[in-house]
């Protein structure tokens, strides 16, 4: 109780939350042998290509690696604002 209150007042993130985030990153890296930097580059390039066709909010693009049974899947969540006019 008290600990949680102190944590709340200090705006500290619980260590379990930090563990969970670290774990997600570590597993992405382990599974494909890619690191965070590669994922960031990938996200940037995909955003670049897609923004030639769509209006997007660059900060909302999420790209993640997930395991689906036997294989890895690249799962992207890219909210689209609208279509770009093409000439």
């Amino acid at each position, binding site marked *: 109780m008290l600990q949680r209150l102190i*944590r709340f007042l200090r705006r500290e993130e*619980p260590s*379990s939350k930090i*563990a969970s985030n670290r*774990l997600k990153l*570590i597993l992405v890296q382990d*599974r494909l042998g890619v690191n965070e930097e590669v994922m960031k580059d990938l996200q940037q390039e995909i955003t670049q290509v897609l923004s030639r066709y769509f209006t997007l909010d660059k900060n909302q693009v999420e790209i993640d690696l997930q395991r689906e049974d036997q294989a890895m899947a690249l799962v992207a969540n890219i909210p689209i604002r609208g279509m770009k006019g093409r000439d």
Partner: protein
Amino acid sequence: MGKVIVITSGKGGVGKSTSVANIGTALAMLGKSVVVVDADIGLRNLDIIMGLESRVVYNSMDVIDGSCELEKALVTDRRVENLKLLAASQRNNKTDVQPEQMKDVCLKLRETHDYVLIDSPAGIEQGFENASSAAEAALIVTTPDVSAVRDADRIIGLLQAKEVSDLQLIINRFAPNMVKKGDMLNQYDVLDVLSIKLIGIVPEDPSIVGSSNRGLPLIYDATSEAAGAYKRIARRLDGQDVPVPEFKAIGWFSNMFGKLFGLD
């Protein structure tokens, strides 16, 4: 014909042997014929956890090199007679056995028993290869921490590559109070990244120490929460539909109450 199930983890000391002893005993108490196989060659301890060390005469090495017949090498449990142990050799090394040899032994055991549970050593090397060579299913044991879950993920990948597809997860040493305080990963954090089926959560339980001192699997302790968890896992493994309960943290009120009256 029975089923061969390997209990494995990647990381050491997360509770594989404890799980094999307790699930094996619980399945036997359900009336199944069970053999538990210690595949931790060179570092055997399943016999000790089960309190059978004084009964062990032969081990799997003697069966493999032909100096003892398989049936004769099996040690019968002291309490449940349909529970047997095939001990590991303490004098040999993991590399003295080949996966094919271990596989032959396990497949033979499967012909005459409902469940063959294999206690895998930690690691991803030959010991794991031997232990998983005959397995059609696996129980992966992890504790709720980053290192153990990472290693579990590696093992899951290796098992899937071997086409062992029936994989289920045991989360061991779960401490609801720590989860509530935000100091431990909860089951959803773990399941989210590992994406295999959960077969059970075993709470952290200090009475395990006393139970291994006595060589009496925890399952015999009627008041232990971990014992209850292992009994449910055994029933799920045997195809029964048993829900996984939420483990509740002890609230500040009952905690204080407990402290006041020295129950803590």
